[in-house]
Structure formats: C-alpha cells, structure tokens
C-alpha cells in the first residue's frame, strides 16, 4: 500500500475511518483484508520454503553441517547437523505451513477476499466485521503454529497427516507440546476459515450486482464459491477429529489408540477432510487460471458451463474418494476397489478442464504477459501431477509406489504447482490491488527460473519413487538399494536451491513495485470483469455506482465490436452482443 491508495481514498471522500489502526490493521474492507492475507501467506512461504531447503540439504548431504545453521541450539541441531527427529519436524511443519498458511491464505483468504465482492459488483462482503475477525483469528493460528518450534521438545513431528497412534501419545514421538500446539493452531484456523466461508457463500448468493446471474460469474468466483462450500463442510470434520486427538493426548482418552480405540479411525476422519482439502487448494487455482487464459487469449473461455459443472462435479466426488490414501492401511481391500473406481471417476472432470483450457488457447490471439506464462505453467504442472495421480489410483500399482517419492512428486506437481497459479494471480491483480504495475521483464526472468527449476526439482522424484525410495526418511544412505540415488538427490537439491533463488527477482520486483512501480490505469489488461471498471486501487465501497451487468465475463473479440474486449457492465445499443 502506498500513497496511491491513500490519495485514491482521499479523492473519494467516504466517511471511511481514517486512523492507521482501523485502516491498515483492523480494517473491515475486503480489499485490505485480502492484502493482509496475501502478505501473511507470502511471509509464511518464506518460512515453509526455508524448511524445504533444510529438508533438501539433509537428503543430499545427510548428516553434514548445514551452512549457516551452527547457531541453532541443541537438541534441534547439533552444530548445524540435523538429527532425525528434527528432520521429521521439518517436513511436518513444511507441509502444514505450505498448505494451511500459504496456499489457503493466499488463494482462498487473499484472492477470495479481494476478488469476490469486486468481481460480482458488490461494495463489500456480507459480514465485514466477521471478515476482519477471520483474518485475525487466522493470524493467531499462524503465530501458534510458528511458536511451536520454540517449545520444549520441538515442533510436531508426526507428518502433516499426523497418523495415530504415533501422534496420539507423546511417548511415541517424544514431542509433547509441539503436537498439542499443532492441533490447537489448526483448530483455531478452522474458525478463521469457517467465518471466511460463511462470508463468501452469503456474499455470492446475496450480493451480486443487478444482472450478475450465476452463469455470468467469472470462473474465479465460481471456483471460490465452490471452495467455500467445501471449506464450510470439510473443516468441521477435521475440527472434530482434532478435538478427539487433543483429548487423547491431554486427557489420556483412547479414541485413536489401540487400547480400546481405533488407530484407523483417525485416518478415515483425516482423509475425509483431507481429500476435499486438496481440491480446496486447487479449485481457486483453476478458477484464476481460466480467467487469465481467457483474457490473454482474447477469446471466450472454451466451454464455460462445462468448466463450472466440472468444478461442481469435483466438489461432489471429492467426498467419496478419501480411501485412496488408505489402500494399504489395513482397510478392507474391497473398499479399496470401490475407492479406486471413484478416484478414477474424479479424474474425468479434471480432464474436461484441461482440454477446455487448451480449447481456450486454440484460435486465440495470445499475449505473452507474465500472468499468462504462469497460468500456462500451472496447467502444464497440473497435467503432470494429475497424470501421476492415475498411477496411484490403480490399487495394485499403489502397492509399490505408496509412501515413496512418486507420491511426493505427484503432490508437489499439484500442490506446489498451485504456486504458479498464485504467481499468475499476483502479477495479474497486482495493479488492481496496489495501483501499480509489476515489472514484466523481471517477471519473465522469475517465470523462466521458476518453471525450469521446479521441473528439475520435482520430475526426478518420480524416478526415486519408481526405484522404491521411501518418503519421510531421514537418510536414504541407510539403505543399500538407495545408494544409487545419492547423485540424483544431490541434483534435486541443487535444483531446489536454484528454485528458491529464482524467487528473489519476484521478492524484489514485488516490493519495488509496491512503492515505485509504474502507475496502473483502470484496466491495464483490457479485461472484461467488473473489477477492471473500478479505479486502481478501488476505493472503499469499490464502485461509484452499483454496476449493471449485461453479459458474461468472457466476451472477447466479439464480432462487430471495435475493440477486442467488451466489459460486463458496458451497455451496448441494440441487441448486439448479448452474450452467447
């Protein structure tokens, strides 16, 4: 936020609270809350990424001193050498932070907040105060999560899936308060996301501008809407499970412990939440990708309704596939067969989306901007990750690749692939969020480095997995059959470091553009959706007058219209271009 924003507010003369605290900190303006979530997520990305680098160091050069880490006190590290339990903490916290405090805050919290009201032509969310609380409760959860590094015994070390009985009793991991805080943090986060999702759903249902029918909503909004419904229904199940886990740990009950309870029950509850969760992560990414591809192909999205329906199908099916994480857990093998079938079915809507993206590019007039490049990067990674999912969906093949790096490769292509969509969205909406453009040359440098090193990091993990390299192992050199993979692990690690270094242009570009970027016009990308008819950045209340929507969001290159775009709120004389 800069003077640009401040002056825009001044011009507008709303009776907006002027104080620093109520403007920047306890703001109830959806745009400011969106920015807060964005900053929170990006900050956590640095933490999560740093943890990933430590993981990679250990895997490439096991039990050697990590440069620059000599200061870390024992027993977390021994003169810079990572001990086994610390390694477990590293990947547990890496995953938890990346999923719950990077992807969710940025894609759902950040862009969800920023985009929903303004893209449907509303002045704000339905419950602005709740919205503010949602951010601050989420921030508290983040603080608890990070604080868990500093308690006696260290942070959670049971994997992000936190399987019981391992995590059901402190004796098994040696971590007591670390895991308690982990549970507590996610419990608190569930309230944040509850408030957020109630807000999103209500806003989408009730606050659309005149003329904004459901099937005129941009796909970003569709995706966020569906995501919010999934969040609303999935997180409470996790909350219930976390509650029982907490009881087991603190009050010595036996829900998930073999003495009386059922260890597998945790897995069922966790994955019943967990599988919808992965789609919670990816749906917003799919939504923004669709919008960006259409804008820069200067072409309507291919199969708009199919895109919306396939997201709805994914949302429904995601409730009945959780067992594919448990094929080898000791669950009844007949159930395994059933879950294989549902899992194969859920790949179909993803296929529809992929081909519709291709269809959107076909016949376009493609402008190679930074957001477009990242959107393409997302599609390309999603296809690789999705296709590797098919291997695991086949139960017999999963016997071999379960819990190997093949899985790690799969989910990084999909979940870490979301980071591409996140960057696409940041470059795309930065002008609207902050009133300035980001530098596109550096953006291209950022893209090329990220794309290349992302693939060099994660693609070879498929080979490791095929070779039987387990995940979550501290030192692969303890196994004879994995000795051959030493070099490959070094290669992956170096790629991962280069991937991290490739983010530096982004950080510099982002910070520099915030304060000194070129001033953005109202509609720098010549896009159709409503946010682009508001000033950059939009004032409190977004629109001078409530916009009237005349058509769908993707009317690009309409025959008979002079420019190759046609904003949703621009009236056209006669019956011309009423959409399709």
């Amino acid at each position, binding site marked *: 936020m800069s003077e640009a924003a401040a002056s825009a507010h001044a011009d507008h003369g709303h009776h907006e609270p002027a104080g620093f605290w109520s403007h920047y900190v306890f703001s109830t303006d959806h745009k400011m809350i969106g920015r807060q979530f964005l900053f929170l997520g990006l900050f956590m990305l640095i933490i999560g990424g740093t943890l990933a680098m430590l993981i990679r160091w250990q895997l490439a050069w096991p039990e050697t001193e990590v440069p620059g880490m000599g200061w870390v006190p024992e027993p977390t590290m021994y003169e810079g050498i990572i*001990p*086994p*339990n610390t*390694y*477990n903490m590293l990947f547990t916290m890496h995953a938890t932070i990346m999923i719950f405090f990077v992807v969710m805050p940025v894609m759902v919290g950040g862009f969800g907040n920023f985009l929903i009201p303004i893209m449907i032509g509303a002045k704000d969310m339905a419950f602005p105060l709740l919205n503010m609380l949602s951010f601050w409760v989420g921030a508290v959860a983040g603080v608890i999560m990070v604080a868990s590094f500093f308690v006696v015994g260290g942070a959670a070390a049971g*994997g992000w899936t936190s*399987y019981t*009985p391992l995590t059901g009793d402190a004796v*098994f*991991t*040696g971590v007591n308060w670390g895991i308690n805080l982990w549970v507590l943090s996610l419990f608190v986060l569930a309230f944040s996301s509850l408030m957020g999702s109630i807000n999103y759903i209500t806003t989408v249902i009730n606050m659309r501008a005149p003329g904004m029918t459901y099937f005129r909503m941009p796909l970003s909004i569709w995706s966020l809407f569906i995501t919010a419904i999934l969040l609303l229904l999935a997180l409470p199940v996790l909350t219930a499970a976390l509650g029982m886990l907490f009881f087991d740990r603190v009050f010595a009950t036996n829900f998930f412990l*073999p003495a009386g309870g059922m*260890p*597998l029950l945790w897995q069922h509850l966790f994955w019943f939440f967990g599988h919808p969760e992965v789609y919670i992560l990816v749906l917003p990414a799919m939504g923004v990708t669709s919008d960006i591809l259409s804008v820069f*192909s200067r*072409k*309507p999205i*291919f*199969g708009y309704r199919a895109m919306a329906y396939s997201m709805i199908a994914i949302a429904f099916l995601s409730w009945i596939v959780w067992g594919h994480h448990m094929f080898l857990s*000791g669950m009844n*093998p007949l159930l*395994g067969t059933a879950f*294989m079938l549902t899992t*194969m079915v859920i790949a*179909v809507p993803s*296929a*529809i989306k992929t*081909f*519709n993206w291709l269809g959107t590019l*076909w*016949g*376009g*007039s*493609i*402008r190679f901007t930074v957001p477009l490049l990242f959107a*393409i990067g997302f599609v*390309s990674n999603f296809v690789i990750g999705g*296709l590797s999912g*098919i*291997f695991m969906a*086949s139960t*017999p*093949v999963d016997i*071999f690749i379960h*819990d*190997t790096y093949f899985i790690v490769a799969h989910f990084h292509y999909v979940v870490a692939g979301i980071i591409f969509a996140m960057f696409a969205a940041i470059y795309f909406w930065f002008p609207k969020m902050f009133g300035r453009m980001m530098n596109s040359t550096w953006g291209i440098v950022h893209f090329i480095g990220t794309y290349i090193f992302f693939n060099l990091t994660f693609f070879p993990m*498929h*080979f*490791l997995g*095929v070779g*039987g390299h*387990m995940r979550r*192992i*501290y030192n692969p050199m*303890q*196994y004879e*059959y994995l000795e051959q993979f030493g070099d490959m692990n070094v290669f992956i690690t170096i790629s991962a470091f280069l991937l991290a270094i490739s983010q530096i242009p982004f950080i510099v570009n982002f910070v520099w553009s915030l304060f000194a970027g070129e001033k953005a016009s109202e509609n720098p990308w010549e896009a159709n959706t409503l946010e682009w008819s508001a000033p950059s950045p939009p004032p409190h209340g977004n629109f001078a007058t409530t916009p009237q929507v005349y058509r769908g969001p993707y009317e*690009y*290159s309409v025959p008979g219209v002079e420019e190759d775009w046609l904003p949703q709120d621009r009236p056209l004389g006669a019956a011309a271009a009423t959409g*399709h």
Partner: protein
Amino acid sequence: MLAKSEFHEEGFELAMMSWLPENVSTYGGQIDYLFYLIYYITAAALIIVTVLMVAFLIVYRQRAGRKAVYIHGNTALEVTWTVVPAVILLLLSFMSISTWGEIKIYAPPAEYEVRVVGKQFNWDVFHPGPDGKLGTKDDIKIENEVHVPVDKVVHVQLQASDVIHSFFVPNFRVKQDAVPGRNILVWFEVTKPGKYELPCAELCGFGHSGMLGWVFVHTPEDYEKFLKENQG
C-alpha cells in the same frame, strides 16, 4: 497385447521405468504390467497435451491484423474429451481389480507361515521352527531377519506393537501397513533365492529412517541349514 510376464524383457524400458527394482515375486509381474500400461497411457496423454499447448501458443500468438476466433465451445469435441478419458480410466480400473483381488483379497493357502511384529524401531520375526507351526515352543525369533523358502506361498501375519509401521519389500512388490491391535495377512511367493531389503515405509517416529530388516529367501537345502543353526 504382450503376455504379462514377458513385458519386462521386451526392451521397452524407458527412462523412468528402468529404475524399477528387479521383481522376484509371482505377482510382481502383474503390478509391473499395470505400471507400464499406465505409464504409456499417461505419457501419451502428456505428450498430446504438451504438443497441442506449445503448438497453440506458437500458432496463435498475437499478430497484427488477426483477431481471435469468437467461439464459446463445441459440444461434439467436449463430449469426446469427456468420454474418451472416462472409458480409458474405467478400463484401467477393471484391469486393476483382478490383480488387486489376487494380491489382497484371495490369498492362496499357506505353504509356510511367519509372524512379523513391527515395533519402534525393529521387526520382530517369529519363524515356525522345525515343527513347521507358528505359535509353538520351538518358534525361532530373530530381529530384523525374515527367512522364507523359495517357490512357496508364504503367509506373513503382520502385527505391530506400538505405532503403525509398514512392511515393504521393493523386490517383491509387497507393501502393507502393520496396525497395532490387528493381525493383517500378507502373502507372497518368491521365485529367486537371495537377500532382499525390508524397509519400514510408514513414518513411525524418529527411528523410522533406518528401520530396516532383510528377507532371506532360501533354497530347500539352505532352509534346512538355517533351521539347524537356530535350534536350541
């Protein structure tokens, strides 16, 4: 289509699959077959999508004087690319079902039995001993060593005493979680004598990495020798 067991020797090994460890169990070939099949299907899908994407990006880049096509979709195309993947995926499922059933549902009768108990951070292995029966006094308990005969159907009674572990023998294409409080049946039949690594594949605490055993697959003579050595 190629016979399942021949598949491996056909020289089709492409980059990724050449890392697959040697298979020495009877049903491993079927798993590998499915693995290859999916590999080719997905590789083809990946190539198609990538080639089309790159081609579109080049051909339809912005150029002066050309406007994008104004089109919202194409029902015939959309139906095609819904139905084709659906059919492929369902076929894959049905092919997987029989193999899965054979491995995890219908185990052939045991010709040899051992009990393996995972605990932090070792495998306790109970062999039947000279009387050939488990659960009798002459059982032979060895840490981290499973001794089994070659070419016999082996049943493993898999248990765990504290947390969940996972019994993984890459060369056998065997993996199964061991759950405390449960007795889970794992079976395999090995076709080649030798010594194979048995890592634990489920996070089980700070000693998970390095929780490692060995499976010794003996010829009948070797097995007799093993029994003699471990008597008394």
